[in-house]
């Protein structure tokens, strides 16, 4: 969840929003017992529909030919994470920057906050994309590793450089030449963020300074939560082992898994949390946790006991990226939208509302006109020194990720 | 033990000795809210008798029975059994068993298990239970049905299981709550005889609640007719039938022709009665009153119709036949008297002469010893319609 500093939801409502789609998306038959097993199987079966299971497995991905009707249909559907867009103070359905886009281009945007989880949302659209069947969204937002996965699977449309000139020009230097999109033609960062440590000073009297402390300090025993996203949790543990999350070996990973396992087995780790980690932290059931900068800072604004710490070992740096699904019939409209958000003024307007790192160069200058106080906010416009302590997680091949994911799940109990 | 006052004593108990054992109710009242179900009832049922509580539904007879069983608690009054006060005892502590109207057989148990239930609860030795159960099933002629479940039995068989289940415990009193109500007529007659046979064999005190006057009369030594929570009359069936105590009893038990009359005082061995301008005589021994407003009663089968001469000494009323129903064993006539009321007459089919037709002018007559004189003060209004 990316939450706003302006209008935070109640922790319960937030937690609810966070967990609900996971449940809705997969095993619907919780109350129906045996149906649980059935549903899982049915989904599994549907997932492989149209495939000849006995056929050879490699490079089955098709290249879809999708017409672009953008010229005649001045509209698009934008699927984003909840609380990730500037919102009118009075009318929660109005988004000033989107209205600006409509005014500028005449393109009508249907905005949906229907993404809560990378895996879960991809699970919903995966089959259609694989089969070159149309899905509704023309712009979707996925975190780096999932974006990389879609790019690799030929499931996103390539940008036409002329139509995303702002993006290619104004993308923050630290985000240029990313391994999964070196030419900046597939994934345009929407917002970026750090993963570090959050703690509640009411419960934890001594500040938690490092990942090592988080995983071993005796006074934190049974009060620590880590995240279900592999990149966040394992990235920080790799850092604590002195490894570079952007470039590590299988042996490094195994060592990190061992370290996590010790912390789980000793009872140091109380929970492996999804997006609802913040509720636990705010309530004090969790004293210290792995958390996302924007979330923790926003909560800290309401409750001074909740604090975000950049671990001594460094923090993880990630982006959520706008992608155009390969089956989108409004690709040009979508590119216009992407380019619009790379106008520094628009980016600053958005950044002033969303408390995450703005990926647009020049937005810092534009911010002076909007909210001068935020210009020096290092969690919106981090300094180079801060960025130097931030690390990206390396892009993994599908089978490697599966293997790592399996090891990670085995340690956290599921 | 006859310590308790027994205002209404059963006069012809089978044992003739109400002194030992027996069931005594003293001043028992049961109220449900404002409704008085049983009103200051006092009653003694001698040990070994077959006692019937007869009444229409809602008269309090079942409530009385349930108080004896312990399923209801009296509002006031006392119940003693064999001299011991059982008024506040829990049902499972009382040496009393009930045959329920619905039988209430345990559907999940076999017939044997149903019958053995009470003995098991009383911790009778296992070795003794089996023969006792078998003997009881023999008695009710269900020896081969022990392993069946109640649902696999006919209504009559279920009824006998219910009976066996209660009897096997040798209760001091066996309560029967309309036990034959669910059976068809033929089976009911058969079971009546059987119940009577069993009661004679085992010699227990039976208290039988029924609304069927014929059933009560067939089986019971003593019948108590209940009405509105009170006992109207108690005695042997013949006494109640031949000489009812009230207009209610006269009409509830069988059928009666009741003439509104005025008793005019004793006249020799008779009481002189005037009704509708005519004078009649009723033997003093068959008169509840000697003067004042009265009902002169005659049972329909005691009336004769004739177109000829009335025998000497009979009372007579002229009339016209308005209806004639031939039912084989007898012919039932309705005869309109001069004052407009109709008299019911049952003429036995003795083979002499054919049925008379409606419109025939006849004389209805009866022997004075066959009539009875009741007080008109109470009961007449609530009397049940003639059946």
């Amino acid at each position, binding site marked *: 969840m990316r939450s706003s500093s302006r209008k935070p939801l109640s922790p*319960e409502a937030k*937690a*609810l929003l966070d*967990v*609900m789609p*996971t*449940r809705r998306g997969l*095993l619907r038959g*919780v*109350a*129906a*017992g*045996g149906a649980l*097993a*059935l549903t*899982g*199987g*049915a989904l*599994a*079966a549907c997932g*492989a529909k149209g495939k000849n*299971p006995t*056929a050879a*497995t490699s490079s089955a*991905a098709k290249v879809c030919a999708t017409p672009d009707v953008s010229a005649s249909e001045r509209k698009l559907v934008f699927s984003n994470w909840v609380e990730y867009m500037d919102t009118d103070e009075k009318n929660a359905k109005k988004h000033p920057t989107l209205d600006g886009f409509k005014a500028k281009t005449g393109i009508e945007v249907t905005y949906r906050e229907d993404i809560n989880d990378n*895996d879960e949302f991809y*699970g919903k659209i*995966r089959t259609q994309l694989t089969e070159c069947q149309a899905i509704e969204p023309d712009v979707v937002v996925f975190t780096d590793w999932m974006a990389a996965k879609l790019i690799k699977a030929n499931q996103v449309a390539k940008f036409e450089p002329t139509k995303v000139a702002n993006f290619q020009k104004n993308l923050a230097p630290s985000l240029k030449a990313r391994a999964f999109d070196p030419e900046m033609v597939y994934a345009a960062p929407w917002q970026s963020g750090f993963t570090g440590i959050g703690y509640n000073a009411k419960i934890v009297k001594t500040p938690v300074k490092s990942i090592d402390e988080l995983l071993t300090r005796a006074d934190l025993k049974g009060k620590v939560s880590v995240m279900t996203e592999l990149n966040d949790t394992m990235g920080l543990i790799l850092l604590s082992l002195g490894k570079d999350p952007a470039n590590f070996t299988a042996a490094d990973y195994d060592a990190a898994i061992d370290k996590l396992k010790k912390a*789980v087995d000793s009872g140091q*780790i*109380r*929970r492996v949390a*999804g997006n609802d980690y913040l*509720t636990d932290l705010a*309530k004090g*059931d969790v004293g210290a946790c792995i958390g996302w900068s924007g979330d923790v800072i926003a909560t800290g604004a309401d409750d001074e006991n909740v604090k975000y710490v950049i671990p001594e070992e460094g923090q993880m740096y990630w982006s959520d990226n706008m992608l155009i699904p390969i089956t989108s019939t409004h690709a040009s409209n979508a590119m216009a939208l992407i380019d619009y958000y790379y106008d520094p003024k628009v980016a600053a307007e958005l950044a002033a509302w969303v408390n995450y790192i703005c990926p647009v160069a020049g937005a810092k200058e534009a911010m002076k006109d909007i909210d001068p106080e935020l210009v020096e906010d290092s969690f919106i416009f981090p300094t180079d020194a801060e960025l130097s302590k931030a690390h990206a997680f390396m892009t993994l091949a*599908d*089978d490697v990720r*599966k293997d790592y*994911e*399996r090891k990670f*799940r085995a*340690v956290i*109990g*599921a | 033990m006859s310590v308790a006052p027994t205002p209404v004593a059963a006069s012809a108990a089978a044992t003739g000795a109400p002194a030992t054992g027996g069931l005594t109710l003293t001043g028992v009242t049961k109220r449900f809210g404002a409704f008085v179900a049983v009103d200051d009832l006092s009653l003694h049922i001698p040990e070994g008798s077959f006692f019937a509580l007869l009444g229409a539904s809602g008269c309090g007879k079942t409530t009385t029975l349930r108080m004896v*069983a*312990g399923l209801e608690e009296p509002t006031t009054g006392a119940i003693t059994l064999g001299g011991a006060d059982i008024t506040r005892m829990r*049902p*499972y502590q009382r040496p*009393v068993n009930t045959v*329920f109207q*619905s039988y*209430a057989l*345990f*559907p*999940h148990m076999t017939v044997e298990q149903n019958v053995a*239930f009470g003995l098991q*609860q*009383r911790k009778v030795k296992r070795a003794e239970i089996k023969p006792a159960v078998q003997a009881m099933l023999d008695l009710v002629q269900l020896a081969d049905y022990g392993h069946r479940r109640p*649902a696999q039995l006919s209504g009559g068989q279920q009824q006998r299981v219910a009976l066996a289940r209660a009897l096997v415990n040798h209760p001091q009193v066996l309560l029967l709550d309309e036990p034959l109500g669910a059976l068809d007529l033929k089976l009911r007659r058969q079971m009546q005889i059987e119940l009577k046979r069993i009661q004679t064999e085992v010699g227990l005190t039976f208290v039988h609640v029924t609304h069927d006057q014929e059933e009560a009369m067939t089986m019971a030594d003593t019948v108590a007719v209940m009405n509105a929570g009170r006992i109207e009359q108690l005695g042997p069936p013949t006494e109640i039938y031949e000489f009812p105590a009230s207009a209610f009893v006269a009409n509830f038990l069988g059928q009666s022709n009741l003439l509104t009359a005025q008793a005019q005082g004793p006249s020799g061995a008779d009481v002189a009665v005037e009704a509708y301008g005519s004078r009649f005589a009723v033997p003093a021994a068959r008169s509840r009153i000697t003067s004042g407003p009265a009902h002169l009663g005659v049972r329909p089968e005691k009336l004769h119709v004739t177109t000829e001469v009335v025998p000497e000494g009979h009372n007579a009323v002229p009339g016209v036949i308005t209806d004639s129903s031939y039912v084989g064993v007898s012919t039932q006539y309705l005869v309109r008297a001069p004052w407009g009321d109709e008299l019911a007459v049952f003429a036995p089919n003795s083979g002499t002469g054919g049925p008379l037709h409606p419109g025939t002018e006849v004389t209805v007559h009866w022997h004075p010893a066959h009539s009875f004189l009741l007080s008109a003060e109470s009961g007449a209004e609530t009397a049940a319609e003639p059946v």
Partner: protein
Amino acid sequence: MSAVVTTPAGTAGGDTYEPPPEPVAGAKRRWWVPYVQLFPGGLWLVIFFALPVALLAQSTLWDPAGSLENGYELTWRWQNFSDGISTYSDQFLRSLGYALVATILCLIIGYPLAYAIALKAGRWRNLMLIGVIAPFFTSFLVRTLAWKTILSDHGWVMDVLRMTPFFGPDDRLLATPAAVIAGLTYNFVPFMVLPLYASLGKLDPRLLEAAGDLYAHPIKSFFRVTLPLSMPGVVGGTLMTFIPAAGDYINAELLGSPATTMIGNVIQSQYLRVGDIPVAAALSFTLMAGILILVAIYVAVSGTDEVV
């Protein structure tokens, strides 16, 4: 039947009623009629039950090296089962254990409640029934999240428990097996109460009077009459509780810790996170088969068909 009819047809308007002769079984009706009548139900079963189960069964034998993007190969890999069972035996046993404990607790809580509603509530009966069903009007998730607040380290339950000698300042309920079982018990108690209520509602109170009349103390009456006659409700309720509880993952996810994950959590993460469809399917299938076997044994032992 025709042999019974002794009066000639011409006198049918006479004295006694003769029922019309029944059609002779099997002779005139076409043999296929029953099958046609079964067709809609059968089709429904095939589409919504048999087919998914068959597809699930097939996917359990895929080679896990595949992916949804690239397709899976059916290699009859029975190892998926042995892998899944051996790797996740802890979670399997935990699921069955938690579900069993929760079911027993549901029975202990639900029986007196159902008994009170069915036999003692009188005019409050409908209100109490609504009370039992009312939680269904809120989402399963919200209810479980509420338990998170109730059992919180800083909630009133823990404050009270810490006053007892059994709980030290660092002990907790949340993120323990107790919390998961409490959540399961709470969430599934209505599934226990409703069948029990239906069963006890059919109990003839006169049978209890009869038992009392036959010298049975009320406690004895309960065990000899009430309980045996409510066995269909007990069996139904325990199944309705145990089966979904064994497959649940929400309670373990929200109220548990890494040490309390259940098989439902594993299936979820294998399917959604790891993307190992064959193993997820094999685990689902094993869970389903395991529960079916347990249920079959249970029903056979409890002998519900005997009870009226």
